[in-house]
Structures are given as structure tokens and as C-alpha cells.
């Protein structure tokens, strides 16, 4: 049986790992290569690296970081953040990334999804969606934000997810901006709505504080995988703890 994936997410700025609380208040949490190796040995199922460097120097550093990680860590690596062109994607794949995650670039130029999927295969193209609940709507609705959560787009998250998949996205990395950084649970309604609307895997992101939050995202949210950052980085729980918990509650995980 296909197991549910636990995916540590490392935010990298200028070659160092940082993690934001609701996208601000960054705090340095270590060297990306060492952390990648640590999570590899701990039993992570994949790794996601988000480059939050604003500069081109930072992005060049990220290519080197990916090269070094892929020499040490033999599991799937997804890299996102600041990828704007087919050439940006190609560079990351050649550096050793298995998948690239597109967010703002995909919204601004959806054609990059189809072109990337055609050139490298859908499995290389992850579309990351940052979504925020629209307050006061009768039916629950979520709006897509770009530019690291700064800019509202008026796009409906469910419609955008469907469109991204129809263009060739092989996976959706879905972050609830309302839940992100608060460690009080994922937005399971959002996750479930999107997971049921598309036929590609959905990674739930934003809000994990306890193993039960991950369980809920997988069971109630119908996520195929869960992204976790703070819950892991600050040693509240280990991947082993989380997998033992999930396994005891009947969720299939890799041991």
C-alpha cells in the first residue's frame, strides 16, 4: 500500500535554513546540508527546500546547496522559491532536484506549467498554492496569494488547483496562510476540498503543531503527504515519534 509521506520543509535564505512564523520573524535554524542529512537518517520521506532569498546571488547559492545535498541524501528533493523560467527549472533539476515547485511564476504565466511538464515530465512540476480564507463568504472560499503571501490575486484556490493540474502539474503543495506558523492544526477543510477536486497528490502545509494535526490532515483533509517545519525543526517531535503515532492510528507510513 502506498504510504503517506512526511516531508520536512526547510526555508533557505542565502544558504542558511530559516523558518518564518506567518512569513515573518525569521530565525536561523542551521546548515541545509546537515539538516537534510539529519532528516534523511531520521526517516523523512522527501525534503522540500524553499529558497526565500530575494537576490540572484541567493539563488545561485541555492543551486550549490542542492548539488551538495543531492550527493549526500538519497531521497526525493523538491526545490522552490524564485523559479521564474524553464531555464531556472532546468538548472535545479541538473543540480539534483527531483521536483521544482512553482508559485508566483505559475500564476503570472500558467504556460510555464505546461512547458515544464512537457520538457521534464509532470512529476517534476509541483504547483505551490498559498491560500487564505475569504472572510464572510457563505460557502467556504479561499483566495490565492502570490509573492510569498503578500499579494492577493482574486483567483479561487480550488479553480486554480484544477487549472494547474489540467496544465500538467504533477502535485499540489497547498499552504493555508491562515494556519501557517501557528502550530494549531492544518486547514483540513481547504486540504480536503482541493484533494477531492484534483487527481494528483496533494501535500498539506501550514499549521502542524502536534502529530495529531498531521493525522487529521491525512485523514480528514485527505492529504497524500504532509509538510512539516516548526514541529520538527525545534525538536518538539521527531519523525520517528510522528510515524509511530500515525502507524498506531492506522495510517500507512514507511518504517
Amino acid at each position, binding site marked *: 500500500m502506498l504510504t503517506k509521506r512526511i516531508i520536512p520543509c526547510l526555508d533557505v535564505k542565502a544558504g542558511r535554513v530559516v523558518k518564518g512564523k506567518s512569513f515573518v520573524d525569521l530565525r536561523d535554524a542551521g546548515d541545509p546540508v546537515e539538516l537534510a542529512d539529519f532528516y534523511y537518517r531520521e526517516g523523512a*520521506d522527501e525534503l522540500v527546500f524553499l529558497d526565500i532569498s530575494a537576490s540572484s546571488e541567493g539563488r545561485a547559492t541555492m543551486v550549490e546547496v542542492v548539488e551538495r545535498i543531492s550527493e549526500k541524501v*538519497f531521497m526525493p528533493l523538491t526545490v522552490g522559491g524564485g523559479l521564474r523560467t524553464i531555464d531556472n527549472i532546468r538548472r535545479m*533539476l541538473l543540480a539534483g532536484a527531483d521536483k521544482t515547485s512553482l508559485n508566483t511564476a505559475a500564476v503570472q504565466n500558467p504556460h510555464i506549467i505546461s512547458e515544464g511538464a512537457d520538457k521534464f515530465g509532470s*512529476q517534476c512540476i509541483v504547483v505551490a498554492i498559498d491560500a487564505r480564507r475569504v472572510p464572510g463568504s457563505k460557502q467556504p472560499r479561499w483566495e490565492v496569494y502570490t509573492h510569498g503571501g503578500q499579494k492577493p490575486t482574486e483567483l479561487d484556490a480550488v479553480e486554480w488547483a484544477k487549472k494547474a493540474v489540467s496544465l500538467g502539474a504533477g502535485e499540489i503543495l497547498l499552504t493555508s496562510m491562515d494556519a501557517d506558523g501557528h502550530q494549531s492544526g492544518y486547514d483540513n477543510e481547504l486540504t480536503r476540498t482541493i484533494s477531492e477536486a484534483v487527481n494528483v497528490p496533494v501535500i498539506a502545509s501550514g499549521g502542524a503543531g502536534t502529530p495529531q494535526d498531521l493525522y487529521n490532515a491525512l485523514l480528514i483533509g485527505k492529504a497524500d503527504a504532509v509538510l512539516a517545519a516548526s514541529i520538527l525543526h525545534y525538536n518538539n517531535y521527531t519523525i520517528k515519534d510522528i510515524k509511530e503515532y500515525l502507524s498506531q492510528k492506522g495510517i500507512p507510513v514507511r518504517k
Partner: protein
Amino acid sequence: MITIIDYGAGNIRSVLNAVARLGYTTKLVSTPQEVDEAEVLILPGVGAAGHIMESLKASKLDNAIRKYIAENRYFLGICIGMQILLGETEENGGKDCLNIVPGVVRKFNGGLKVPHMGWNQVKQRKSHPVFNGIPDETDFYFVHSYYAEPEDKTVIAGETIYGKPFCSAIIRDNMIATQFHPEKSGEPGLKIYDNFVKLATGKIL
């Protein structure tokens, strides 16, 4: 020396890294003559089967691979590198493949999420040195939308369940192929490469 076919697509680097990590020297090749000279050959695969077949045909690597395998030399195909061993694939609107292993490559359907992406168990259907030290039902990493259906079921060396059981490894004589990615499957995956190279170079029998 481990020879790895580079047909201009695919994540060659992770395969190179995995083999290099085990301490073996590697060589990337892209011509029929270099394939013919290989001692141990790996065909990695990421991308679309139709595109890869076109690329292999254009460089005449298709016949070089057929000849290499017909001579019963050690071969390891990975993911699409396994699928194109079959007769034909439904991918890219239907394409002929190498037809070294008669059969068809079909798309997953029936309400399953596609690609089949993540870690899943491989039930070992053959006892073979390539599985040395790897417990039955070990999880390996998969990412694919199509699966191989060989006509001759005796070539099936591994089976995995996604909706229903499908062929996740093929072994026939010295030709070995996996649908999963050993280079992305942690230590058990590295062990597959290590076993394969040791077998091919006569270090295990």
C-alpha cells in the same frame, strides 16, 4: 567502471551520485559504440517514454541496447528505463518501445491519484542476489503514471499494490529493471545498486 546512458533527459545526476557514493567510478555515454564497450550498463529514466524512445532511436542507441541485452550482459533499467524494454506504451498517444520484454505499458486508472508517487512495498517474486540484504516488502520510492504488463509473467521479480498489484521489478537472465527509483530509496535503494554492481563484476554469485 559503471556505464550510464545519457540520452539528454532524465535525472542522471542522482543515479551518478548513488553509484559514486558506493565508491564506483562512472562514465556517462551517449553513443552505440560506447554502449557496446560497456562492462556494466545502467539506463536511468525520468520523463516521457515516447520522447525517450525518439531520442534513443535518433542516436541509434535503441539497437545498441537490444544487442547488449541479447548478449546477456549486465543491464539495469530504472523507471522509464524499465518501461521502454516492453513492446509498446500507451504514453504519448501510443508508441513502440524496444520490445525486449513483450508486453504493454498501461496508464493507471480507476480513480487513483496519478502519478503513483511515494514509498510503497515491493513484494519479491524471485529470490535473486540483487535483493541480498533487503527484507521482503521493503518500501521503495515510486513516481510514475504508467506501469509495465509483461506477457511472460515469469520475468516479474517484484510486485507492488496500487489499486491492484502491478509489476515493479523485472529480472530475466542478466537484465534487471525496476519501476521504483533505487537512487531515491535511501539505504535499501543503494543496496540494490551495490548488489547489482557486485553481481555484474563477479563479486557475488
